[in-house]
């Protein structure tokens, strides 16, 4: 029986993501959002989600739709500020009212903690944020004369990531800066769904694969 990770519909691709899940969403600076899958997750409608996403508010991502729909209990991110001059983002409205939890991390800590979860490392020391409000309450230790903060890994129940090309083993390529958080999130989550531009009927050549299919469970071919 051959491995075949393609799913026919976005609904099938996100099936099983349930209430209380920690869901990771790729994308940064306008590239790499799996918006088709995010839309399907909104249709599915699980509640009390924790989102792990670089920005709670990026205008080109559909993250805000999950938040506006009241499906999100908590956001772990490095940016939670809307750029819309005309008002507050969906996140900010709920945040102002104390109806959504927020954990802000420096972007490097955010992604290293995700990578750590995928790499079997429960905690690590980093120089980032030492002496700042974002290190408040965290353990500090000095190594060779410099102070570091202990940070914990961030594991996910599901990751919805965007890529360019997939083959039936789930191997992926990424276009340009589309890559960003996708590979790390894929290693850190139990269920990994990739929304791709196109499917390759032949195996992606070994040296062109950017993320091994070992980390990918389901593929949705969504076009450009």
């Amino acid at each position, binding site marked *: 029986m051959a491995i075949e990770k393609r799913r026919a519909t976005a609904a099938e691709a996100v099936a099983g993501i349930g209430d209380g899940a920690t869901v990771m969403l790729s994308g*940064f*600076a*306008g*590239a*790499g959002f799996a918006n088709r899958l995010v839309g399907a997750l909104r249709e599915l409608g699980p509640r009390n989600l924790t989102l792990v996403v*670089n920005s*709670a*508010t990026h205008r*080109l991502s559909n993250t805000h739709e999950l938040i506006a729909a009241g499906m999100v209990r908590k956001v772990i991110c*490095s*940016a*939670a*500020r*809307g750029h819309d001059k005309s008002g*507050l*983002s969906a*996140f*900010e409205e709920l*945040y*102002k009212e104390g109806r959504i939890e*927020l954990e*802000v*991390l*420096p*972007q*490097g*800590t955010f*992604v*290293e903690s*995700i*990578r750590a979860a995928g790499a079997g490392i429960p905690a690590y020391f*980093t*120089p*980032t*944020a*030492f*002496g*700042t*409000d*974002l290190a408040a309450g965290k353990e500090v230790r000095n190594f060779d004369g410099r102070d570091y903060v202990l940070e914990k890994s961030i594991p996910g129940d599901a990751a919805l990531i965007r890529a360019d090309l997939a083959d039936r083993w789930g191997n992926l390529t*990424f*276009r*340009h*800066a*589309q*890559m*960003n*958080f*996708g*590979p*790390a999130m894929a290693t850190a989550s139990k269920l990994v769904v990739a929304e791709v531009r196109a499917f390759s009927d032949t195996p992606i050549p070994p040296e062109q694969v950017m993320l091994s299919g070992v980390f990918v469970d389901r593929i949705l071919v969504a076009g450009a």
Partner: protein
Amino acid sequence: MKPLNRLQMAWRVGQDIEDGTVVNLGLGMPVGVSDYVPHDYDVVVQSENGIIGVGPLASANAADSDLVDAGSRKVTLRAGATIIDSAASFAMIRGGHIDVTILGAFEVASNGDLANWDNRIPDKGPLVGGAMDLAASARAVWVMMEHNTRKGGPRLLEACTLPLTAVRCVKRVYTDIAVLSVTPQGFLVHEILPGISREELQRRTGAPLTFAPDCKDLVTPDIALPEA
């Protein structure tokens, strides 16, 4: 003389970028610095979303929504560029592989403390991005900011009043009226805009200034801002 505009500030910083270095340019004013690096230099511009070797902005017909820098600008790649994922990009930053990062700031203290991420706007969510990683781990942190707030208050202080980005990290500050470095003895002035006296610069600064023996005029070409 008028204070430098943001393009003249970028030009001034660009003169101090060395050939062959790896630099990261913060959102806002700092990204403009790359326009003023000598054309025959091989400077690798790293963007924290994973681009190693950012080139000029893309023309309208070459713009690609997957080829963006950390500030969502549609860019091109320079010869010799590559793209890595965010975990690898921040490993590069945190591991000390960036020679210089140029960041905007709200405040810099005379011990090098930097505050550039949280200016306490009511109701707005926080936004830290990669600033703390860059400030903590680039080999050199240079700040580019106006010397005073819109209300005329000082941004160069004995101690920051806003939440810190990193402690004791800033090496140089380029403002619209002066170029300073941060030394164990505090701020040292290297250049002052002609027409501003040492006394006036001190009045506009919230920490004691020392003046370098070779302190000279801050001079840039005329560079007009684009029409709004």
